[in-house]
């Protein structure tokens, strides 16, 4: 992949600047027929190559330059230390586009691409532009001066593009100096063309290319749910699909709101995704207020209602993870506005793939109980640390080389790794789940706490609890 990039950022500012000072006119006095006329003043870049200048001159000494004219050139461009901001800041903005019809060349009323645009902090520069005004007489010069001078008081906004995500496009031009004439006063021996020079400053930003990705936020899911009241005629033995109503149930995912599922609560965190030039770093999460967040959808009322009302204790929140979705009813927490009480529907929890364990134990720090000394058949424990070491086993079944709690005389030594699950089979402890060898995703419930755990990436984590970011959770009215 080439590292080349160029989007003509300074070039576009120059183009817009020339546009800004274009279309000025001078009023010529009456000619021999008594007619006044207006002459438009051309504006062009003042640093042409000799080749082009020669072409414009038709390669002839007899061609005449024309006045009045205006030329623009870059006076200087300097790094603007005063406007430096966090160089590593990356701003993200999510954009939905309208669908584009290539046949008609128009945007339709349908949704098109959904994009996430990541923008790296641009680099500040101060661009100095010179505007030279070439005139052949003082009256002409004053006419142009008067027209141009009311443009800048003292600044004028300038844009290099109208792209909604281009945070470098907007700048302003400030008039900083005017050199009235290039001639001596009086003009002396030469009757040269007079040049008046305006000096302008533009604080601009030079940006690296953006990263454009498919939008990672799930903003809308429509699931069709059959409404039996309208679909099935009592007594009928067939289902009339035409007569039924497929009701759409809307799911809302608020932007900028994140949820921490912990225990039976959902804690709300707000992340600020607003784009500000002054942002020094990614904004931190702050506690949110569920009462405010819910307002975007109506209200979380105590009584069932119709429309877009969320019902306290009935409406649901859906948490999406890599194993599916966990759905549970929600209700306001009585004291903490950043919490919702969440009662997960057990049917939506991931299905256990392993038999449940009686508890999670640390074999290096465990209180020996009768339950451990006399376990029932099928008792299972999840280990936080290893038990035994194969190097300690001398192979003599008449001696116990490992920890006495986990070994029985005449039985093979128990050697288990951290995160293994061990099981009592009636005569000895053996490894029922080998954490080293297992790479698949597994689920198991701790019967002691009722919490389900997930085995993934060689570690156990709570299966559904944790932080659900933007797009990973949604309201279901």
């Amino acid at each position, binding site marked *: 992949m080439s590292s080349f990039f160029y989007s003509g950022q300074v070039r576009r500012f120059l183009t817009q600047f020339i546009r800004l000072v274009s279309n000025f006119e001078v009023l010529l*006095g*009456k000619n021999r027929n008594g007619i006044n006329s207006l002459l438009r003043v051309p504006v062009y870049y003042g640093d042409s190559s000799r080749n082009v200048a020669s072409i414009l001159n038709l390669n002839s000494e007899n*061609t005449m*330059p*024309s006045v*009045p004219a205006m030329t623009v050139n870059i006076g200087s461009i300097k790094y603007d230390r005063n406007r430096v901001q966090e160089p590593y800041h990356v701003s993200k903005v999510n954009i939905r586009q309208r669908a584009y019809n290539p046949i008609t060349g128009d945007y339709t009323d349908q949704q098109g691409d959904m994009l996430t645009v990541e923008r790296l902090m641009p680099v500040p520069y101060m661009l100095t532009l010179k505007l030279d005004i070439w005139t*052949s007489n003082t009256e002409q010069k004053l006419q142009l001066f008067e027209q141009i001078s009311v443009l800048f008081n003292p600044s004028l906004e300038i844009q290099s593009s109208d792209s909604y995500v281009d945070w470098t496009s907007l700048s302003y031009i400030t008039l900083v100096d005017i050199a009235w004439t290039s001639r001596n006063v009086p003009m002396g021996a030469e009757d040269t063309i007079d040049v008046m020079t305006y000096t302008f400053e533009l604080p601009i930003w030079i940006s690296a290319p953006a990263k454009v990705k498919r939008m990672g936020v799930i903003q809308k899911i429509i699931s069709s749910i059959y409404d039996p009241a309208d679909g099935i005629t009592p007594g009928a033995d067939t289902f009339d699909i035409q007569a039924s109503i497929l009701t759409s149930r809307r799911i809302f995912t608020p932007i900028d709101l994140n949820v921490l599922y912990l225990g039976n609560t959902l804690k709300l965190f707000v992340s600020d995704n607003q784009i500000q030039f002054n942002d020094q770093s990614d904004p931190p999460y702050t506690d949110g207020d569920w009462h405010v967040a819910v307002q975007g959808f109506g209200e979380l009322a105590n009584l069932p209602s119709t429309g877009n009302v969320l019902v306290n204790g009935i409406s649901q929140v859906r948490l999406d993870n890599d194993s599916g979705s966990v759905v549970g009813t929600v209700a306001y927490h009585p004291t903490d506005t950043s919490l919702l009480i969440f009662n997960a529907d057990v049917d939506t929890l991931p299905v256990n793939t392993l038999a449940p364990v009686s508890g999670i134990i640390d074999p290096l720090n465990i209180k020996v109980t009768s339950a451990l000394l006399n376990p029932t058949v099928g008792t299972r424990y999840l280990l936080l640390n290893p038990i035994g070491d194969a190097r300690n086993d001398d192979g003599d079944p008449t001696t116990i080389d490992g920890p006495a709690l986990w070994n029985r005389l005449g039985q093979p030594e128990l050697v288990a790794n951290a995160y293994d699950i061990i099981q009592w089979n009636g005569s000895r402890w053996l490894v029922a789940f080998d954490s080293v060898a297992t790479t698949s995703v597994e689920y198991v419930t701790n019967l002691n706490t009722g919490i389900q755990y997930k085995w993934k990436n060689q570690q156990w984590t709570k299966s559904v609890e944790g932080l659900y970011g933007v797009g990973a959770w949604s309201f279901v009215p």
Partner: protein
Amino acid sequence: MPRLSLWKDGKHSNDYKFIDRRVSEMFTISGTGVLLHKYLGPAFQGNTGDVTQPNYINQSERNIQDLLFLENRDRVYDTSVYKLRGIYQVSDSAFDLTQFGLFLQTGTLFINFHINDMIEVLGRRIMNGDVVELEHLIDYDTLNPDLPTALKRFFVVSDCVRSAEGYSPTWWPHLWRCKINPLVDSQEYRDILGKITVRQNYDGTESVNTDSLRDLISTYERYTEISDAIVEQAEVDLPKSGYDTDSVYTYDRDNIDEPDFKVSGYLSGSGLPPNGLPATSGIVFPSNPTEGDYCLRTDYMPNRLFRYNGSRWVKIEDAVRTNITNNDTTNKTLRNSFITNSATFTDVNGRVQTQKQNLNDILKPKAD
């Protein structure tokens, strides 16, 4: 016997006349052809109401158009072209590339004319502001073979003095030395350049081309085309001020087809409904609206987009985006509303006046 003397107490002696005829003959034999456009004075400007810009009755090269700036901007030249002979030292010239384009760095020439011949033909001496055309410098081979005529070489006289080399032993001067600079297409010389049209092709046939000499010999048209192209590209890059959100889909969380808001940003209001939905426009709201109807009120400045929510019309946005090309009629910026304002009003006396007036003139009495 009187003492021998070529100086005759201020009289032009026969010696002087003899030498002068020889000098004239020399110019006839060895001088180059010069066509001179005689400056006649500033064009009549009528009553300007400004004492420093007098309204002259007679055309004269002694008139001064602007007594404040001491300049003659709108000059009139004789429609007759005067043929003279001049002598100058041909020298090499080089182009100097300036911001303004290519300039002849050594384009200034010093050319001598025979005084008496000049006065006889012209009626006066050559003066500053006269324009001369050196016939032998005509260019038949420019880069554009489609030009209907060869390009002539014009100079403007910027200085005139008696030539030091033109004094004869009688101490009387015979030569008029003119400093001439390459002519620039400017307001001062449009009477020459704009007046001359091409009548003949190279082969002598009548040309259908009605371009003036200025159209052919000046860089104005070419630089104007360049300027227009730059502005056109600028309008492509930025058709209107602010940010374009019309191509952005407005997602309504309530899944309403006609959203009651629009994706917005700094100066992003276009007056168009979200998602390209239809809208009516006018100075009144439509009767019998239905919920979700949009209406652009054009009597608001800037125009304002409303949406009917079933009981009232709710503001969505103001149409603040505008073309910002300078002095364009579609430029709706505040400043431009003062500058490209062509509106009129009728005063209490029934006179129609333009709204756009200079501050210093507003309260002055006006003619009926």
